[in-house]
């Protein structure tokens, strides 16, 4: 059992909390995640990638969006409240001196992208960050990313900040330029990662993605997190969370993510929250991405 040390609301739906977890703060590496639970008995187990860690203060930073009943329960916690946390889980990102790295983060995905950007930079890479969101308000971690990256490109769906574009646009431009990336890391909604992988495929640029599947234990025991990668079944929690985006069976993964859509809607209803709007905007974003990328 750990405690919440600080809490900030970054936007309407996005929260940033610092959690007391000295061992996790010390052991974690870029790319790893934790599983949190609002309580021990009835709460769901939610995987969240670690956005930052401060080993000295024994704290880790998590950023999450309220998408269902469980994330709302988490958001309802205040400083000092206990939560259950297990981690760090998953394999750390493979970091080396690749040369030029392009890191693409969409929405909430900018949080887990942050430690990877940091690690890539520390390993001596030139790092370009493409930060995308629906609208300016949802752009997070901008200060942190700006201070590390060699270049920060911002793209919003509505043009309220940076370019009015999808992240795949600048990504393709860089791939087509005379200095294409040696590696691309994309973290964000599955549909975004899918289209990033499609965007880099013709250029043959290796593209890592970090999958956030449904999880229960996070230790390899349940297989709920499984996904087909290059025709083989992989467990995201022990074999991942990062995979070659060109090999992931995106449609299979996305339909598995929707397994409980109906129950989640009902649960949401119970919290008197309007999922319909969120769903609608998600779908339209997906449609826009599809149009923009294909």
């Amino acid at each position, binding site marked *: 059992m750990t405690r919440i040390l600080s809490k900030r609301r970054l936007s309407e739906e996005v929260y940033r909390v610092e959690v007391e977890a000295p061992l996790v703060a010390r052991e974690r590496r870029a790319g790893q995640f934790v599983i949190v639970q609002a309580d*021990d008995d009835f709460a769901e187990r939610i995987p969240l990638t670690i956005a930052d860690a401060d080993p000295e203060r024994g704290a880790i930073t998590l950023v999450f969006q309220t998408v269902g009943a469980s994330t709302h329960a988490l958001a309802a916690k205040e400083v000092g409240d206990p939560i259950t946390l297990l981690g760090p889980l998953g394999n750390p990102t493979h970091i080396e001196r690749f040369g030029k790295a392009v890191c693409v983060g969409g929405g909430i995905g900018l949080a887990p992208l942050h430690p990877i950007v940091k690690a890539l930079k520390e390993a001596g890479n030139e790092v370009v960050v493409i930060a995308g969101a629906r609208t300016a308000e949802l752009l997070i971690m901008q200060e942190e990313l700006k201070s590390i990256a060699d270049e920060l490109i911002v793209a919003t769906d509505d043009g309220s900040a940076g370019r009015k574009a999808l992240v795949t646009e600048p990504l393709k431009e860089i791939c087509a330029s005379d200095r294409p990336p040696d590696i691309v890391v994309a973290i964000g909604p599955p549909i975004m990662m899918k289209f990033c992988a499609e965007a880099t495929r013709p250029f043959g640029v290796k593209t890592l993605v970090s999958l956030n599947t449904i999880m229960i234990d996070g*230790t*390899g025991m*349940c297989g709920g997190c499984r996904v087909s990668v290059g025709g083989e079944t992989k467990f995201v929690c022990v074999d991942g969370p990062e995979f070659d985006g060109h090999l992931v069976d995106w449609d*299979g993964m996305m339909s598995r993510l929707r397994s409980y859509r109906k129950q989640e809607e009902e649960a949401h209803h119970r919290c008197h929250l309007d999922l319909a709007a969120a769903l609608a905007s998600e779908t339209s974003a997906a449609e826009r991405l599809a149009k923009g990328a294909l």
Partner: protein
Amino acid sequence: MSGASKEGLERQAREALGRIAAIRSEGRELSPRDRLALPVQDMPCQVPQARAANMLEVAEGYSEAQAKVEAERCLDCKNAPCVSGCPVRVDIPGFIKKIREGDYVGATRAIKRTNLLPSICGRVCPQESQCQANCTVGKSLKSIDAAVQIGRLERWVADNERACGACDLPDVGNSSGKRVAVVGSGPAGLTTAIDLRREGHEVVVYEAFQKTGGVMVYGIPEFRLPKSLVAIESNLLAEMGVLYQLNFLVGRTRKLRSLLAEDGFDAVFIGAGAGLPKFMEMPGENLVGVFSANEYLTRSNLMKAYDRDRAATPIYPSRRVAVLGGGNVAMDSARMALRLGAEEVRVLYRRTREEMPARSEEVGHAMEEGIIFDFLTSPTRVIGDKDGRAEALEILSYALGEPDASGRRSPVAIKGSERVVPFDTVIVAIGNESNPLLSRTTPDLKVDKRGHILVDGAQKTSIDRVYAGGDIVLGAATVILAMGEGRRAAAAINELLG
């Protein structure tokens, strides 16, 4: 076997007690013939229709009268063949005699000398292939079902002790100043912890989940093993001074090596369980609606998804469920699916009832509850709808072939027997592979090609001061075998630190 009402069973037991008293009032002891004539005491159970719709324990346990009659059936054999069938060598005739004498505390003590978790083993051990398989009474009556019901008696003794609130705490020795880390709080880890604590070592149990008990809390369902029982046993350890560190994944939260090198532990025991569910490796297995039994059961047990009003973890809405496999895990999944509201649950098993590894009592219970068994069948692929959800299985029939050298008849597929049967949920319960986490994060920990940790006769691994036991060594085994290994490891560690 079951069917008689609780009241009926009680009446029958009292009548038998009357007959026993009558014999004794003539001044003579019961002859073996008298004992063989006593009726086997059936287990009182919730009626099938009622229990298929609730999570309460199916088997309700003997009454005192039933326990007494059943105890009188034992012949107190000199060579005690039952004991040699028990992996931890419980003094079976010894504890049964104590029941007969009305010395129930003595009975518990006799069991607990070797088995520390009798309330659990009495419920989940495969007695019909262990102690009861060897019982002279069963042999004389030419039916394994007529053996002395050792497991039910064991359970009664433990439940009775708990009901009296007279739980004996094992003695804790004077502090040795030594510290041992135990990885995993399943039966292997818990037993090891108790035996280490008895010697006065400081024991810290690390558990990845938020609750202790391993498979006993996340796998075996409430209706077969109440979670409150597991909690009571775990608390007993805490009372003995065993420390728990929950939500702690050794290998990730802390490396195994660091426990020894930096955290001041003198030895480590690994009881990490099997993990990593096996799949059939057939097309369509990643479709929505296909689950490993581990996932299905963890959602419903540990995460309490059956409590729809309170639990946040969703459970898949199933109408037609196919369970693949024939072991305890398959039985538990099938019966759980039924309790969660499925309309039809079928178990698809490649062999026949005789070969099923599940406890026979559970197979019987499942049949009574209306689970349908399709023996000699196995699926070849899962068929999905346009949204990627499972909607049917393609199934193939098998026949048992000629016996091979070992006398085992393997199933052979019948050509052209493919057919498509609608199912919205498929639960795969065909076993586990070993969890690679510890071996991946501990490079010099040697494992076999299936990933099981290699140990010597004293449960020692390839690393000094590191021991292992239970499913992580044996592959998916049983609670009692895990306990047996834990005790052996504890003895070796106690000697090492002694």
